[in-house]
């Protein structure tokens, strides 16, 4: 674990503000995860769960959709890691 120090005129106020901001950031990241999952499901509903290479070979997939689909799978992974990293942040306000 690493530590950062925050300087503020009112410790209580700053602590509450940081906790609130962190909670909001976690909520936003969770919502982003859900949006990514929904979008991936839209692609799977549209094209099925066939192997990507099979879809491309058969010319069954719009290449713009394919690029976005790949981007979405990668984004989902990054967003999940972001949620985990945010949840690991602890604020001590003693």
């Amino acid at each position, binding site marked *: 674990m690493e530590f950062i120090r925050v300087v503020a005129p009112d410790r209580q106020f700053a602590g509450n503000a940081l906790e609130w901001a962190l909670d909001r950031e976690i909520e*936003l*990241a969770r919502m*982003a995860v859900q*949006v*990514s999952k929904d979008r991936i499901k839209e692609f799977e509903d549209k094209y099925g769960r066939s192997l990507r*290479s099979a879809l*491309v070979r058969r010319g069954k997939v719009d*290449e*713009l959709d*394919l*690029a*976005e689909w*790949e*981007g*979405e799978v*990668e*984004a989902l992974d*990054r*967003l999940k890691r972001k949620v985990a990293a945010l949840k690991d942040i602890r604020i001590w306000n003693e």
Partner: protein
Amino acid sequence: MERIGDRFLVITTAIEAMPAVDRKRLTLDERDHQVGVIRGEVVFIDGSCFRFMEHLDLNAPDFRRRYAYEYRRRPAGALVFRYDNVAHEELEELQTFPHHVHRGITDRIECAEPPDAVELLDGLRRQIQVDRRPAPARPVRVAERKIAG
């Protein structure tokens, strides 16, 4: 660039400058301040169509994690170009892998660095202006008059 909205503004401004647009559709799907998707379709009055998608993560060194820019002409939507970085296994030998371009109706694949979307639109704008330039006036043939000697 700090926010997804900044990128959206850049693209929107470039599209607003395009001539001969019949209709357009642009969407910004903002996941958080730095992650999001921009999609768009511009149909020109000659029926040709530019479609694009950018999956963005402004935290990444190459902020366009995935992209595709496609231009098709009438008739029957013949492909002119499509730049994208979909990682097709069969293209791993390409020097610019996964970046490449598909060209023409034969879908010829070539190496290509990621293009600048604004430059692509600018190229299309210049091409469309050339295509729409009025044809030069034909020289008027003056009837020769034979003067009887």
